[in-house]
C-alpha cells in the first residue's frame, strides 16, 4: 500500500504501532484503512483484542486470526494418509457387482462365523447333556436348568413366538402355553413329543385327530347344530333353551362322545379338548361354537424334529413346561433308559 492510504488515520495508529514494534512487526506494513476500502485482503492489527485479523471481510465484518497450532494441521494430514492406507488394506471400494476386498482380506462375516462356532463349542458342554435328558435330570443341576431355560427362551422367540406370542400367551387357534389346559398333555415328555412330531404335520407319527366339518359336510343340519351349541353352552350356564339343550344331548352322544367323551371332558390321547371348562381354543361364544361345528377345525403345529437339534427341542420343552402350566411326568415305563447323571461322560 502507499503512504497516501496511511495518512488519514495516522492518529489512531499510535498504540497499535507501539505493540507492533514490540512484537517485531513493522507498523509501516499495516493497512490503516478499513479493509473494505481496498478490496479487503490484508490482515490488520485489531486494537481492542490485540490480535490480527485474517484479512477476510464480509460487509465489514472481519475475522480475527487466532492461529491454529501447526501440529494440528500435521495430524489432519496424517488422518488423510491413514485413510489412504486403510482403503488399501481393508474392503473399501464398491465395484459394479463386487467390491475391492483389501490387501488384508478382512471379512467381518467370517470373523463372526468363527466367533459363533467358538460360542457353540463353549455351549456344547452344557447343550450336549440336554439332548436325551429328562426333566428330573435337568432340574437336578441348577446350572443346566438355567442354561435350558435361557436356550429355550431364545429358541421360543425365534421359532414359536410367531404363532404362540412372545410370552406364549397364545391367540385364537393358537393355544396359550402358560395355563394348565393341554390338548395333547402337559408333562415334559408330552410337550417334547408334540414339539418333535407336530400336530397334523409332515412327521409320520404326527399327532393327528379330526374335528369334522359337521355343517359343511352335511352331517348335521342347521337346527341340529343350534341344538348342539345350546347343549355346550349349558355347561357354563349360558344356555337359554332347555328343550334345545335336551335335543343337543342326544346329538352329542351320537356324534361327539366318541372323541370328547360322554361327559364332554375331552380325551388327551386323541387330542380332544375338554368342552366343559372356560378355555376355548377357537373362542367360546355362541357364534364361535357354531362356526367350529359347521366348518370343523384343523389347526397345524409343525414338526420340529429335523428343523431343530434335539438339545434345542429339549430346551424348548423345559421352557414351555416352566411357563406355568407344566404337569408332572408320568412314571417311567419299565425298560426305559432315562439319562442319569452317573452316565454322563
Amino acid at each position, binding site marked *: 500500500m502507499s503512504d497516501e492510504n496511511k495518512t488519514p488515520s495516522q492518529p489512531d495508529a499510535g498504540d497499535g504501532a*507501539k*505493540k507492533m514494534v*514490540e*512484537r*517485531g*512487526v513493522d507498523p509501516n*506494513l*499495516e493497512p490503516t484503512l478499513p479493509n473494505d476500502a481496498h478490496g479487503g485482503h490484508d*490482515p*490488520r*492489527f485489531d486494537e481492542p483484542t490485540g*490480535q*490480527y485479523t*485474517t484479512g477476510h471481510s464480509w460487509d465489514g465484518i472481519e475475522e480475527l*486470526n487466532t*492461529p*491454529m*497450532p*501447526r*501440529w*494440528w*494441521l500435521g495430524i489432519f494430514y496424517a488422518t488423510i494418509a491413514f485413510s489412504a492406507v486403510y482403503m488399501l488394506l481393508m474392503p473399501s471400494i464398491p465395484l459394479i457387482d463386487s467390491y475391492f476386498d483389501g490387501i488384508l482380506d478382512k471379512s467381518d462375516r467370517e470373523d463372526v462365523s468363527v466367533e459363533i462356532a467358538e460360542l457353540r463349542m463353549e455351549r456344547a458342554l452344557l447343550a450336549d447333556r440336554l439332548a436325551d435328558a429328562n426333566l428330573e435330570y*435337568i*432340574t437336578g443341576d*441348577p446350572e443346566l*436348568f*438355567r442354561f435350558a*431355560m435361557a436356550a429355550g427362551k431364545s429358541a421360543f422367540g425365534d421359532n414359536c413366538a410367531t404363532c404362540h*406370542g*412372545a*410370552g*406364549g*400367551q*397364545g391367540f385364537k387357534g393358537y393355544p*396359550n402355553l*402358560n*395355563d*394348565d*389346559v393341554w390338548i395333547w398333555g402337559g408333562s415334559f415328555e408330552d410337550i417334547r413329543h408334540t414339539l418333535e412330531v407336530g400336530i397334523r404335520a409332515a412327521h409320520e407319527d404326527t399327532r393327528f385327530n379330526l374335528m369334522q366339518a359337521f355343517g359343511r359336510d352335511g352331517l348335521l343340519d342347521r337346527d341340529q347344530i343350534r341344538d348342539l351349541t345350546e347343549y355346550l353352552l349349558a355347561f357354563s350356564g349360558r344356555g337359554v333353551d332347555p328343550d334345545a339343550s335336551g335335543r343337543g344331548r342326544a346329538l352329542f352322544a351320537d356324534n361327539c362322545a366318541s372323541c370328547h367323551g360322554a361327559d364332554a371332558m375331552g380325551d388327551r390321547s386323541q387330542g380332544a379338548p*375338554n368342552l366343559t*371348562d*372356560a*378355555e376355548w381354543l377357537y373362542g367360546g361364544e355362541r357364534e364361535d361354537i357354531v362356526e367350529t361345528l359347521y366348518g370343523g377345525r384343523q389347526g397345524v403345529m409343525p414338526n420340529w424334529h429335523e428343523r431343530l437339534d434335539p438339545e434345542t427341542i429339549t430346551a424348548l420343552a*423345559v421352557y414351555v413346561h*416352566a*411357563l*406355568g*402350566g407344566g404337569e408332572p411326568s408320568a412314571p417311567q415305563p419299565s425298560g426305559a433308559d432315562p439319562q442319569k447323571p452317573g452316565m454322563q461322560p
Partner: protein
Amino acid sequence: MTTLIDKTNPEPRREAAPGVMRSRAPSPTPSTPVSLYKSREQIYPKLAHGFFRNLKWIALIVLLGIYYILPWVRWDRGPGQPDQAVLVDFENARFYFFFIEIWPQEIYFITGLLILAALGLFLVTSLFGRVWCGYACPQTIWTDLFIYVERFFEGDRNARIKLDRAPWTLSKVYKKVAKHAVWLLIALFTGGAWILYFHDAPTIARDFFLGHAPMTSYVFAAILTFTTYSLAGFMREQVCTYMCPWPRIQAALIDEEALNVTYRYDRGEPRGPHKKGATWEGRGDCIDCRQCVAVCPVGIDIRDGLQLECIGCALCIDACNGIMAKVDRPPNLIAYDTDANVVRRMQGDKSRYRLIRSRTVIYAAVFAAVGFTMLYALLARTTLDLNVVRDRQPNFVRMSDGSVQNGYTIKVMNKATAERTLKLSAVGLPSPIVKVAGQTGLSLQVPADETIDFRVIVIEDDLDMLDGRAEFVFELEDADSDTTANRPTVFVAGE
C-alpha cells in the same frame, strides 16, 4: 477487568538491577499477521527455587508414588477373592477399592465419584484458581519429571538453549540419547503401571515380560508409553493450551475474587531497570528482569494479567521472590491475589479476601450433599438384593379351575463371598400358591458373588379379595446371616 500494560521501556540492558541478570526470554504469545498456523516454540523453563517449587516436588513424589505403588497394595477379601486393594476387574465386571466392591449395576457410585470430583474442582478453582493444573494434573506432574530429567543431562535453561543451537558433537549426542532413553524408560513404567490396575499386579507383571499377558495389556501399555513420551516430552504446554478443555471451563468458574497467581500491577508499575543506590520513589518494584517469564513452563508473561495459558503453577512467584530479596524489596510482587484487590489498591482501598462468596458456598453445599448421599448409599449397601420383572405377555393367565396365575422373573444378587440359601415368600396376597420353576420348595440357592434368575409362578384363587389387581411384596430371607431383601410388585387378576 482490563489493565492496560504499558510495555514501552528504554533500551533493554543486560542487567535489570545490580546483580540481577535480565533474562532473554522472548516476548510470549507472539502473533504474526501472516500465517493462519503457529509453529510450537520450544520453551526452556528455568529451574525455580522456593516454597512453591518445593510444594510441587512434594506433590510430584506423593502422586507418582501413589500411582506406581498402589496396585501392589494387598487387601484380604477371603478365599477365592482377589487380594488387590485397588482393582478394576473387567473380566468379572467388578471394581474393588479396599473394603468396597462395586458391581456393574452400582455404576452410580462411579457417577457420584465423578460428580464429586467435578464439584471439588469447581470449588477449589473458584477459591484458588487452577491449583489442579498447577500441582496435581498428570500432564503437569509428568512434564515436571521429564524437565527434571532434561535438566539433569542438558543443564538449566541457558545451557539447554545453547546446546540446541550448538552443532552436533559427541557430547550433544550423548546428552540427547541419554535424555530420551530415560524418558522412554519413565514412559514405559507409566504404561506398565497402568495395566496393573486391571489385573492381579504380580501375575500380570510376570506374564507381561514372559509374553503371556492379554493383548489388551500390551496395547494399553504401548498407548500410555507413547502418550507419556510424546505429551510430557514434546507437546507439554500445547496439551494445556490446545487439547485440554479444562482451561476454557475455568473462565466460567474464576471471578474477580478468586485467588490466582497474580502480578500486583499496582505495586510493580511503572516497571524498569533499577540502578544501584537509585531511589524506589515514583517507580514500581518490577525491575523487568523477566525471570518470571524464564521460569514459566507455558511461556507466558504473568505481568500481562490472567491468561488462558497460565496453569497456576506459581513458579513465577518463587522466581520473583528470589529477585525481590536480591534487590531488597518485600516479597510477593507476584502472589496469590485477586483481580479485585489490584483494583482496590489502585483506588487507595485496602485488600480484602472474600473466600466465602455465593458461588463457593453453593459449590461446597452441593459437594457436601452429594458426598453425604454417596456415603449413605455406601453404608446402606446390602450384600443381598433382588429385582422382579413381571410377565406382561400374558399379563395374567386364567387356569382351568378359575384361579389366576401371574409369572415373574426374580433376579437375586448375592454380593456375599459365600453361597446362600434364601427363603422366598409373597407377602400381601390372601392365599397365594408360589412355585419356583425347576425345583420343589421355595428355598433359592444362590452361589457366592453371583446374580441368578428364577422363574416364579404365583397362583391366587381368592379373587374377590383382589379387585382385579393387588400389590404385594416378594421377600427373601437369609436365615444364616439374618439378612432380608424385598421388592414390591403387583398381581393382576383380570382386565
